[in-house]
């Protein structure tokens, strides 16, 4: 664990206590069984504690803290698979506005995000794999505004978000747009994915937007999008780290209690060494995630490499730990009544989101110049 400030430690401890009491895995299970994407009452509580506004500057109603601090909270909510708009609204959509929003855009959305009055998300990918370099959704100039046509796929919180940051192709490059969730011509198809979170395919059929909908410079959105994606990847890696730690803790506890052949199975060296490997990889991944968040907060110049390192390692780690969680629990780990399956399902979705290990290894190599 990084050396934290007093404020960070307090917030982290508060999050830990709240998650244990108000949002254990059983709460997520209830949400899943109800068919909802998240529990509005739980989200309301999170907003009342100020979590939705952690990185929102004070003048817009937030706390003005750094991404590392938000990462600490995401790590805790990740531990119990808490489903909420926290990540997509308080980190992703908020970051989009902080990176490129005009004063009017910030005034319009940030106070609402911070209070929980509105939620937001980002729509980039158009197919099953993360591919920000392959955007085809088109925004054509029409009068003083734009008309959008095309599709976006697997948009997290896409069916419920009040505003969607859409990456579109314009005449001279990429442009980001703020598209209201209820925009005319936008149809949202809610999907049921294995992790039981809100996700949707979006179809844009002549969606008309005013000039003030462009977020940042027209045709100049590529760099902003990269910076935004890096924040999303680092934040997601923090959430995944928490989930990995919890998956591991639960599995370790089982190794210490399950008895076979007259002794707890954790005494078997074959399992001990696999547990030691997971512990080792957890420590390494923690260093990478903290380094990525810190680099973003310090505006360091190796942000892209550190973020790809963090997201790749978090993806690999959770892949390993989620599989081991099922395997080491044996038959019970295969049942729906056990939590292992919930972690396994969420693991794969989180791995794929914003690029899996292979995507980020390739990106890392390219950044290193080979």
């Amino acid at each position: 664990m990084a050396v934290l400030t007093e404020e960070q430690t307090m917030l982290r401890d508060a999050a830990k206590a709240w998650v244990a009491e108000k949002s254990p895995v059983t709460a997520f299970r209830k949400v899943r069984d109800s068919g909802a994407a998240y529990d509005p009452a739980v989200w309301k509580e999170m907003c009342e504690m100020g979590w939705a506004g952690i990185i929102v500057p004070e003048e817009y109603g937030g706390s003005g803290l750094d991404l590392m601090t938000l990462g600490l909270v995401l790590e805790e909510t990740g531990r119990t698979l808490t489903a909420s708009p926290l990540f997509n609204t308080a980190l992703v959509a908020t970051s989009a506005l902080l990176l490129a929003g005009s004063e009017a855009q910030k005034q319009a959305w940030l106070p609402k995000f911070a209070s929980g009055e509105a939620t937001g998300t980002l729509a980039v990918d158009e197919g099953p794999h993360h591919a920000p370099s392959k955007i085809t959704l088109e925004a054509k100039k029409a009068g003083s505004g734009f008309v959008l046509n095309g599709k976006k796929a697997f948009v997290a919180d896409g069916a419920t978000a009040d505003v969607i940051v859409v990456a579109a192709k314009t005449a001279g490059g990429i442009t980001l747009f703020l598209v209201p969730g209820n925009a005319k011509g936008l149809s949202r198809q809610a999907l049921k994915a294995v992790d039981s979170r809100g996700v949707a395919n979006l179809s844009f059929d002549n969606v008309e937007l005013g000039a003030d909908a462009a977020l940042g410079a027209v045709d100049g959105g590529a760099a902003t999008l990269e910076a935004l994606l890096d924040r999303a990847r680092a934040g997601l890696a923090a959430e995944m780290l928490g989930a990995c730690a919890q998956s591991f803790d639960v599995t370790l506890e089982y190794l210490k209690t399950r008895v076979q052949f007259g002794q707890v199975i954790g005494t078997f060296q074959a399992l001990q060494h696999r547990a030691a490997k997971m512990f080792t990889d957890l420590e390494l991944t923690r260093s990478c995630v903290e380094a990525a968040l810190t680099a973003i907060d310090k505006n360091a110049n190796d942000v892209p490499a550190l973020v790809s390192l963090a997201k790749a390692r978090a993806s690999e780690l959770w892949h390993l730990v989620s599989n081991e969680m099922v395997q080491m629990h044996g038959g019970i780990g295969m049942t729906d009544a056990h939590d292992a399956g919930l972690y396994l399902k969420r693991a794969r979705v989180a791995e794929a989101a914003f690029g899996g290990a292979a995507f980020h290894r390739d990106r890392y190599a390219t950044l290193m110049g080979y």
Partner: protein
Amino acid sequence: MADTAELESFRAEARAWLEENLPPSIKGVDLAMAQQAGIEPEGEGALWKKRMGEKGWGTPTWPKAYGGGGLSKEEAKVLQQEMNRAGARNPIGGMGVMMFGPTLLEYGNEEQKQRHIPPIVRGEIRWCQGYSEPNAGSDLASLQTRAEDKGDHFLVNGQKIWTSGAQWAHWCFCLVRTDKTRKHEGISFLLIDMKSPGVEVRPIMMISGHSPFCETFFTDVKVPKENLVGPLNGGWTIGKRLLQFERQGLGGGGGGAGRGGEMRPLEDVAKSYIGTDEKGRLADPDLRARLTEHLMHQRAFMLTLQRSQQESKSNQGPSTATSIMKNVGSKVIQDRAELLIEIMGQQGLGWEGDGYSGSELASARAWLGGKAVTIYGGSTEIQNNVIAKRMLGLLDHQ
């Protein structure tokens, strides 16, 4: 962090001195490694070593009184940064610098320091470590090599093993038994001239073709009384202190130390042997992916080293990350060595002679020699046992 005015002026001084004194042909060349194998540098290498030795910058923080650099920790850090920048590698190394020198500076008497420290500073004297014995490995204090008091000298009889570099060493710092009735309190710290009659060194041939380790036999070796460091029967404390210096030196493994062979970054070596496609990517996509996995693992290791240092410095107590360092660091070293010879293909599998470059031959030997790092200092399996028991609280099998 910005330099203070003093550090800034020292930085300028160091930069100017390096510019003037580092021979261009020695840029990026690691002379210390070859010397550990008994090979003295020649030509401009010898010149570089002489200059660094006279300046005392090979042992930057050692006192000026004994020829050291006399630098503060901060100045030494600046010097290292400037050396990295200039491509200058420290030609002064070995056990004298890493372990024995710092120990003697703490425990030696004035005469011993005056006699032994300056030659270490100048890299003239190589030291070896007479600790392990055939029946005293992990249980070092059960050592049996005896030193009998014969009035004006000690008479030493016994056998040491895994004495790294004994065949090239001028001197040996040795733990010997001076009292058979007590265990830890019967051990003394003795300095033995390897040219003394009765010292016999037998190198142990390893798979690398090198013999970095030896068996060392002492038969009626006369050692002057003045070579005793610290009090009689007070050697255990000194010997343990030396081990602390040794472990500090082994620390940071995957970061650089322990690497051998081709020293350029792996991706550059890969580009030159494998070539690139039209987009500048390595032409072998499978190798590119595995190389990347290794480089990312190495980065994760370095970040974890940094994190555990920061955590240990803060008041959080010792970092939990420390327990994983040995295994991760040694894996980084071995993976690099394996990738290196794979990248070089058959050129990386030369044993000796024509047809292979020096760095290719060195890479093959480093690959073989590197198999030791997951065995010594607690094997990977032992370290995993330690993690399972101490960190994870898993119990022994009944």
